[in-house]
């Protein structure tokens, strides 16, 4: 019989295995990037740095009962009767049968939710992405002067005296000379000054022209796809350029510039005239973003149901956009879940693929599913063989 208190400070097993778990989470994330890229929690994160993402791969699979089909025993407050509803499915937090409290917790939560840092996810996603045709623009980037303090000298202007270092030098000298490390008796040789250097910096700017079809046929799902795509694209461009601007243009039969909020939330109706958006994009470029100074990335999402008579014009303007821009992207979004090959005769993607003159700077993809967003990103920003 005894009571003891030992030093446990070296006990780190839990922490070590916690790291192993984290490693597993990371692995699982890497494997599931496809579904994570379009996860609502991230796309709608609104500036939060960490979000919770369900990761199925981390379940601890065992043979277990289907809790939804199992009769269980519970306890009431003394007044329960047959027919009483004690919980609704979904918010069911009860334990499984008697005694197994732990199993109860697991039964409710169907999967493990990992807390992920959006920046980390972004780093993983961007790992194999690059900006196509960046170089030639960078040469023309604007130069700007910046000043950086990056050296220490023995002489200089009093205003730039580095006091910390001075004290340090003084103590060291005292220790050397008197054998005692103390501060005092400052001499000129103890003084240290910060000096600076002027450097030229290349600033590069990019503008994304986000074009989206908001005609009647573009439903919630299609908008969401476009939204998650733009979310990552903007993030990605920000890692490469100092300054990324985004212009939102929505169109049905007419195009107009809108705010971000309107862009993602407004529903419209009516038909689709794609050329209207391309014309507006060209106008915006001419007015505000000179191609000599800006890297320009127009991306257009539509379901491809363009008015037949407009196709000619759309192709012509698309060609023009391609001439002025770094890369022109076009994403055609299908119906949710219909991964099959569904295409109306007027679908724009096949027309673009057939008829565009300069396809080197054109990327067209088709997206039918949330999981397709990641491959699409890769296609837009993937490494390409220079032709």
């Amino acid at each position: 019989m005894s009571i003891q208190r030992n030093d446990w400070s070296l006990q780190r097993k839990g922490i070590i295995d916690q790291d192993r778990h984290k490693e597993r989470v990371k692995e699982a994330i890497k494997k599931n990037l496809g579904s994570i890229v379009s996860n609502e929690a991230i796309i709608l994160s609104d500036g939060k740095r960490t979000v919770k993402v369900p990761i199925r791969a981390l379940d601890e699979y065992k043979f277990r009962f289907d809790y939804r089909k199992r009769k269980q025993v519970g306890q009431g407050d003394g007044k329960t009767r047959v027919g009483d509803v004690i919980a609704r499915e979904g918010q069911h937090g009860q334990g499984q049968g008697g005694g197994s409290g732990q199993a109860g917790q697991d039964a409710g939560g169907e999967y493990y939710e990992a807390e992920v840092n959006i920046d980390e996810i972004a780093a993983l996603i961007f790992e194999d992405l690059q900006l196509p045709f960046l170089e030639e623009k960078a040469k023309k980037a604007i130069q700007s002067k910046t000043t950086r303090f990056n050296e220490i000298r023995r002489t200089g202007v009093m205003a730039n005296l580095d006091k910390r270092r001075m004290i340090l030098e003084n103590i060291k000298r005292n220790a050397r000379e008197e054998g005692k490390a103390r501060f005092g008796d400052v001499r000129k040789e103890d003084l240290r000054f910060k000096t600076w250097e002027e450097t030229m910096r290349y600033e590069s700017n990019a503008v994304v022209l986000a074009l989206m079809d908001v005609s009647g046929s573009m439903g919630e799902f299609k908008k969401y796809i476009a939204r998650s795509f733009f979310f990552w694209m903007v993030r990605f461009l920000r890692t490469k350029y100092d300054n990324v601007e985004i212009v939102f243009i929505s169109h049905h039969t007419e195009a107009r510039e809108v705010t971000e909020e309107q862009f993602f939330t407004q529903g419209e109706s009516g038909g689709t005239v794609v050329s209207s958006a391309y014309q507006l994009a060209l106008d915006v470029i001419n007015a505000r973003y000179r191609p000599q100074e800006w890297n320009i990335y127009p991306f257009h999402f539509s379901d491809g149901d363009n008015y037949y008579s407009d196709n000619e014009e759309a192709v012509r303007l698309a060609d023009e956009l391609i001439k002025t821009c770094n890369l022109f992207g076009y994403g055609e979004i299908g119906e949710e879940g219909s991964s099959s090959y569904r295409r109306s005769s007027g679908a724009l993607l096949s027309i673009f693929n057939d008829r565009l003159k300069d396809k080197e700077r054109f990327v067209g993809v088709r997206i039918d599913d949330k999981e397709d967003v990641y491959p699409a990103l890769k296609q837009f920003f993937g490494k390409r063989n220079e032709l």
Partner: protein
Amino acid sequence: MQDREIKDLEKALEQIWEVARGFGLDPFPTRFEIVPATVMYEIGSYALPGRYSHWTFGKAYHRMKTMYDFGLSKIYEVVINTNPSYGFLLETNSPVQNKMVMAHVLGHVDFFKNSVYFSKTNRRMVESVSTHSGRMTEYEFKYGRKSVERFLDAVLAIEEHIDPNFFIKRERPQAVEERRRRPAPVGRYDDIWQLGEKKEPEEIEEEKPPTDSLPEKDLIHYIMRNSPHLQPWQRDVMAMMHEEMEYFIPQMQTKIMNEGFASYWHARIMRELDLTDSEHMEFADLHSGVVSPHKGQLNPYYLGYKIFEDIERRWDNPTEEEREKFGRKQGEGRAKIFEVRELDNDVSFLRNYLTEELCEELDLFVYELVEDEEWTITEKRWQRVRDQLVANMTNFGFPYIEVADGDYNNNRELYLRHAYEGSELDGRYARKALEHVYTLWGRPVHLETIVDDERVVMHYDGQEHEED
């Protein structure tokens, strides 16, 4: 914690020990350690200190630790069933909390020592798991951390599927017996003479698994012995995990009883200590927190506690009928409690001692999901409630799965059968678990079960799942 407080605690422990012995409790000698929260949660998440490393422990640790950090839950006590036993006290506990925990722990330790279900338990398990852990680390070093981890993932998927009565020696199949009897090389270096000879390929590859032990409930043991493709180190890992589960299974079989018993005794013991009024208040508050009904669900502490109190009452003051029919005398309550703790497990405990009056008093009911939407109370008749509770406790809440054939299709495929008793398996989980079984067996695996009253066999061949 101050040294003075530890002195006080030691004094209290002596007193608690005396009181407990006076009541007839007979625990192993018990050492208490005062530990910080991180260590408490570590021991809690590994269930034993010094166990092998695996990410699932890290996950559990992280979850417990986070709950604690956010003030959502707190473990007061962890007890280790060894001889001597260990009880861990959280360094932030108040003196009254610590006294209650010590009394509670002594209840557990008495249970561990005297329940027949623990009679075969390895009481030096802490040393054993630490040896295991060392061996696993060695394998990690030799075969790679990832390969050991993946293998553990697979074994963990079926770790509960061992035979709780493993210690009842079964007849050894003859072949194994004979192999054992083969004479060992006489001299120390005799096997050198065989160096030039071509070694026979691993004997076990050729050997058909024995059929005389089938059906076999102990999946871990069966696969460990008969899997056509495991490496020696992998069999060793399975053997170690089997040993650890042998240690944990009796705890899973007696959870309600064990907690009820410990709660019953901490209440009795605390009453005998001289506590100040405010300490009494604090204790009453704590105690009611431990043994209180949780709305909707069952609190094992509370259920066990109530049943033990009820047993005491019924054997102390038997009714006229009980006296005549069963020859029950007065004042045998405590003796009966000790008898129950010695002989019963949760299933028999509930079946024998959960009475109509208790079911009513505790307001127990059966509930189920109606039309995929509402969890609805569907039964309140006490026998049905009791039977459902017993059914759910059977096989400690896990589906009963056994090996039906280890040479299915004459092709060394593994055929498992779920002994269906009214509850269906979670299909998605079953398929994933089958993949793990495949990792262990190395050849196609099958699982027979019942879905919507129809017999269904799931197949997995390493590539694809099929069902018919």
